[in-house]
């Protein structure tokens, strides 16, 4: 689909009411998988691992192997349900979702069907313009993640035309909670921003609970976005599409905007929307048709005979409820006060989805103002340029270390930006980059004075000018010294030294 076939967004909203729905998958960061004692690649500090090294007979669906539920995953799921304002089911059960596809070796996924662990909740989502939207949660259920397929052959490397597929089952069995919203209407023009803000809110909640690493670029948090358009005044719901593979906050917003514009153009031209899965393409900012919703969605769910019901006691639920972190809205109020930000400064952080990053950076020792400056400034700029989320570029502890180097005078802002580049390029911690690239500020006054003398010798009239009160003339010397020092000098200190020299020389006369 070319952009020519898109309707202008404002026009689309004028003609149609967008109705949204989200399914967010959260990988829990337990030490082991949902139903087996294999190490969890989504655990803190873990990675995807070498192929098929984090598997047990259960992960491979080998005959005779039996699943056993991870108690910590149950506790995490209940905590998440409670944080989403859900009721926790006194009894819930696992079910088999049957489908024949090699990302799970059993030919079924253990999930929950008609008896999810949590249901009927709501979260308050704050939009960039200050509006708050209540998003109702239909259910949150537990399931296992699937293995990772790599399609080989074919022209594009995508599944169409692939010759064969390679399977790594390390991810098979990672504990997941799927959060399903009710239909969200009334978002109107704010629909794309609401989508981003909703996923950001879920991310903030799971991070605050400490139950997921929540790195979207690693697939710890994944969003499927449903969009349909209802012609204004028709009172009829439109046909929905489900866009998958949306793996950054920024893409969630873009994907919703694109789907609204695409569907509006088709409907306005008298066409019909096909109920289908659509794939999001980060590079082109478009979606393309996947498989139609059809017979393939016939999953023949039935209760999982290898597992027993989960019946959390009221005491357990209350224990977990009392341990919940403060609700996001209260947390935002508290942080704003603690950091002393203006409304605008704080909104800037929230809208950029950087609250967690700034908070963690402050916790790691940086001042709130510096933490905000780096995240919403240089880091956000680079992230935007590379079309990635800022949080994927650098860790809060590295940002705090960088800020500390600037505050101690070891780096100027300019040098710090170069250090940041190095950290993002994977050259190590800020201290490592300073060391490797030799980026320390020249804080040796002797070296600076030598450079100043050289610059003054080249422009002998400058001292006179300064003495005559034309202080701005010092700029030429400062420029020359900074150049001689390859930028690795503190300009404020150079200025001080130049002025000292001028006045000092005056006193000698």
């Amino acid at each position, binding site marked *: 689909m070319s952009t020519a076939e898109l309707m202008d967004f404002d026009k689309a909203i004028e003609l149609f009411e967008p109705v949204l729905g989200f399914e967010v998958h959260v990988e829990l960061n337990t*030490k*082991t998988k949902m139903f*087996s*004692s*294999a*190490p969890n690649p989504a655990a803190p500090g873990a990675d995807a691992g*070498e*192929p*098929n*090294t*984090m*598997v*047990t007979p259960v992960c*491979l669906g*080998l005959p005779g192997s039996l699943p*056993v*539920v*991870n*108690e*910590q*995953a149950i506790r995490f799921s209940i905590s998440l349900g409670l944080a989403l304002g859900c009721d926790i089911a006194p*009894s819930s*059960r696992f079910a088999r979702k*049957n*489908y*024949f*596809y*090699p*990302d799970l070796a059993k*030919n079924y*996924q253990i999930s929950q069907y008609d008896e999810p662990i949590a249901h009927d909740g709501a979260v308050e989502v704050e939009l960039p313009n200050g509006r708050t939207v209540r998003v109702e949660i239909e259910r949150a259920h537990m399931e296992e993640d*699937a293995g990772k*397929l*790599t*399609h*080989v*052959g*074919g022209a594009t490397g995508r*599944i*169409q035309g*692939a*010759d*064969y*597929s*390679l*399977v*790594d*089952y390390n991810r098979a069995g990672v504990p997941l909670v799927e959060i399903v919203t009710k239909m969200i209407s009334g978002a109107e023009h704010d629909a794309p921003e609401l989508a981003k803000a909703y996923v950001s809110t879920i991310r903030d909640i799971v991070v605050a609970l400490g139950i997921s690493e929540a790195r979207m670029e690693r697939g710890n948090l994944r969003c499927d976005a449903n969009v349909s358009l209802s012609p204004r005044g028709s009172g009829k719901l439109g046909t929905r599409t489900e866009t998958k593979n949306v793996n950054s906050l920024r893409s969630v917003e873009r994907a919703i905007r694109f789907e609204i514009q695409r569907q509006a153009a088709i409907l306005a031209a008298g066409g019909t929307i096909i109920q289908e899965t659509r794939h999001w393409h980060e590079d082109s900012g478009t979606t393309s048709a*996947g*498989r139609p919703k059809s*017979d*393939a969605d*016939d999953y*023949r769910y039935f*209760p999982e*005979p290898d*597992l*027993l*019901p*989960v019946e959390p006691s009221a005491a357990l639920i209350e224990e977990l409820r009392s341990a919940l972190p403060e609700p996001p809205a209260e947390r935002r109020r508290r942080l704003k006060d603690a950091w002393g930000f203006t409304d605008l400064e704080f909104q800037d952080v929230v809208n950029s989805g950087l609250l967690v990053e700034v908070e963690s950076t402050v916790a790691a020792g940086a001042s709130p103002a510096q933490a905000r400056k780096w995240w919403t400034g240089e880091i956000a700029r680079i992230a935007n340029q590379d079309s990635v989320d800022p949080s994927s570029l650098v860790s809060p502890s590295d940002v705090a270390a960088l800020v500390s180097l600037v505050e101690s005078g070891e780096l100027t802002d300019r040098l710090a930006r170069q250090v940041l580049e190095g950290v993002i390029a994977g050259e190590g911690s800020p201290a490592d980059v300073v060391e490797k690239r030799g980026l320390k500020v020249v804080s040796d006054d002797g070296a600076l004075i030598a450079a100043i003398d050289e610059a003054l010798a080249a422009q002998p009239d400058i001292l006179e000018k300064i003495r005559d009160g034309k202080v701005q003339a010092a700029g030429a010397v400062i420029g020359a010294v900074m150049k001689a020092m390859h930028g690795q000098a503190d300009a404020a200190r150079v200025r001080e030294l130049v002025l000292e020299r001028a006045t000092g020389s005056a006193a000698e006369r």
Partner: protein
Amino acid sequence: MSATNPSPLDAAQVAHLANLARIALTPEEIEKLTGELGVIIESIAKVSEVATPDVPATSHPIRLANVFRADVPGETLTVEQALSGAPERDGDRFKVSAILGEEQ
């Protein structure tokens, strides 16, 4: 299967199930299975005759719940063990036919 007692399953349903399970069946096989699976369904259906709405479905003979495992990593298979039953492998991964479908 007599004409007065038609199979509770028709050929189209069997073809649909075969398609879901990615099993290629000939028309003869579909016809044969429609009859055979019908008998099984009828036998199982006997249970419904005694089930009443106030009796919850039983998934386990003994009333048990909350059987959990502590979140402690255990032994894993080696790559060689994991792949020992693979019909085909490519490096340390399972090699399977490309299937037009997608991750769920």
